């Protein structure tokens, strides 16, 4: 068990290091020099010496391996460098932009869970076959819809056609309704696909037949016996879902003009502000790897059947 633990943590760290290195090579070492883009422009009217001085101040004139280890040491201490375009530390930009995105993402996640449970429950309770198959095909539809288009359509329908959500100076809650929905619908798609498949699998198990033979109703079996067993495997896609939430937030914030990590990412891409982008990439990889690690380690605890299997092999 200890060996499994060490191996698993080591693998996570290795993936993080590879991601950091790849992000560094992709964004810092290769062309697309943000300092040049900002300070070489004619209206800045800087001499070559002054530019060289600025490059030295940012540490851009050092050899690549020295910059690599400097950046790595800085990242380990929580220093993500300077945004060339804004002229402030990246960590400061993150502090400002992370909270609104986290709020949007967690509300979107919550809404997605509610939506998922509704879809999965309806697809098992509704009696009419045509309606049931319509509900069951909803996740495939949700996956095929571009997030940005979904957001625009929601504005179109709820703000302009029905007049339900105000576009001009909405309240703090009203402002979040449509973005949260935009984020939730595509996230709910893979979740409900997995949940519905698991429910089908669990329903085929012998203990369900026993419960039914004892006279339990379909709904009772579903909630009391099936739900718990079917929900657990959805944990395995938690890490992927986090990435989807983050990517969804980038697009959603662009559609609704909200401030946050998404806006920061878009600005960074537009300005070739690679330090900002590298920080965002590495942080999101860190979150993904940690979530997966926690799920992997927690899973045997939540499902004792798996724990005993692991104990035997490890």
């Amino acid at each position, binding site marked *: 068990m200890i060996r499994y633990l060490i191996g698993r943590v080591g693998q996570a760290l290795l*993936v993080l290091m*590879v991601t950091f290195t790849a992000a560094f090579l992709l964004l810092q070492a290769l062309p697309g020099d943000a300092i040049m883009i900002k300070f070489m422009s004619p209206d800045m009217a800087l001499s070559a010496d002054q530019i060289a001085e600025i490059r030295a101040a940012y540490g851009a004139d050092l050899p690549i391996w020295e910059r690599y280890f400097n950046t790595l040491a800085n990242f380990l201490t929580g220093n993500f460098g300077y945004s060339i375009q804004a002229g402030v530390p990246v960590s400061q930009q993150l502090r400002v932009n992370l909270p609104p995105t986290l709020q949007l993402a967690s509300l979107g996640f919550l809404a997605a869970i509610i939506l998922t449970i509704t879809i999965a429950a309806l697809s098992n309770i509704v009696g009419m076959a045509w309606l049931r198959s319509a509900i069951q095909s909803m996740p*495939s539809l949700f996956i095929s819809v*571009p*997030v940005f*288009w979904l957001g625009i*359509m929601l504005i179109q329908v709820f703000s*302009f056609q029905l007049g339900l959500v105000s576009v001009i100076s909405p309240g703090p809650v009203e402002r979040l309704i449509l973005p949260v929905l935009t984020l939730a619908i595509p996230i709910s798609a893979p979740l409900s696909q997995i949940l519905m498949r698991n429910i089908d699998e669990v329903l085929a198990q012998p203990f369900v037949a026993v419960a039914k033979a004892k006279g339990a109703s379909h709904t009772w079996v579903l909630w009391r016996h099936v739900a718990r067993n079917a929900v657990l495997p959805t944990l395995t896609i938690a890490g992927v879902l986090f990435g989807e939430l983050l990517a969804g937030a980038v697009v959603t914030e*662009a559609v609704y003009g909200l401030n946050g990590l998404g806006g920061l990412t878009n600005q960074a891409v537009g300005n070739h502000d690679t330090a900002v982008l590298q920080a965002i990439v590495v942080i*999101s990889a860190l979150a993904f790897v940690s979530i997966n690690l926690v799920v992997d380690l927690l899973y045997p605890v939540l499902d004792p059947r798996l724990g005993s299997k692991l104990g035997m092999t490890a």
Partner: protein
Amino acid sequence: MTTEASGPDIDAIDGAQPGWVAWLRRVPVTLALAWLVVFIVLLWAVAPGLFTSYSGTVGVPGEQLRPPSLEHVLGTDGLGRDLYARIVYGAVHSLSGAFVAVTVGLLSGTLLGLVAGARGGWTDATIMRLVDSMLAVPSLLLSLSIIVLLGFGTVEVAIAVGAVSVARFARLARSEVIRVRRSDYVEAAFGSGGTFWAVLWRHILPNSLTSVIALAALQFGSAILAISTLGFLGYGAPPPTPEWGLLIAEGRNYLSRAWWLTAAPGLVVVLVVLAADRISKAIGKTAP
């Protein structure tokens, strides 16, 4: 090219339908519709002039923001351009972008996976850690990082989208190779003196192909989604290119007055992606 008029064949004598009718009947309606959607959009890309007499980039003065009518099936935009024509002319941008993306992902991903699965050991471990770290970053962020490196434009966006799918193809190809490798006939091929690359090419690759093609079809749909997203964010082809994501972005400025400008191109994207998804599922079912 039908066999109906060519005299009684064996099927007809039996009172059964000719083989191709029976075959057609077995194709599910949704799958047939999916192929139809793909076929039409492909025709749009190859010969847009056959489908519309309007220009995809030049507007008619005085015909701005007309709602859908018989004259303009999907209405016109703020510069008097026929929206249907713009969607038809835009097909080539979205489709070729998706094609480039899938090709990039398929070739490099499959190669990586094949080598990892066939070589094993250190090669395998190194390639798979690289793949893992690609999967650790959200695909949109990965695409954006590559766009920063390559610059903006249609081809750049296509490559960035394709690079994201490299990891998926690599994983699939590797697991397929490992599956096929264990089979007796591959053992036999090695035993009868086949070299590593010969066995890979003659035996392992053909047997892994069906699942890879199913994934390629699925990725084609995802690529169209991703390309339209990046186009919407403004990293793809510059306006007046009628790329689908860009059409939706432009339509956003007329949200309160012209709903068709955003609704129509988005629906086309959804239909194409749904079709790719359906076709991918059908191919996947035939995999061993």
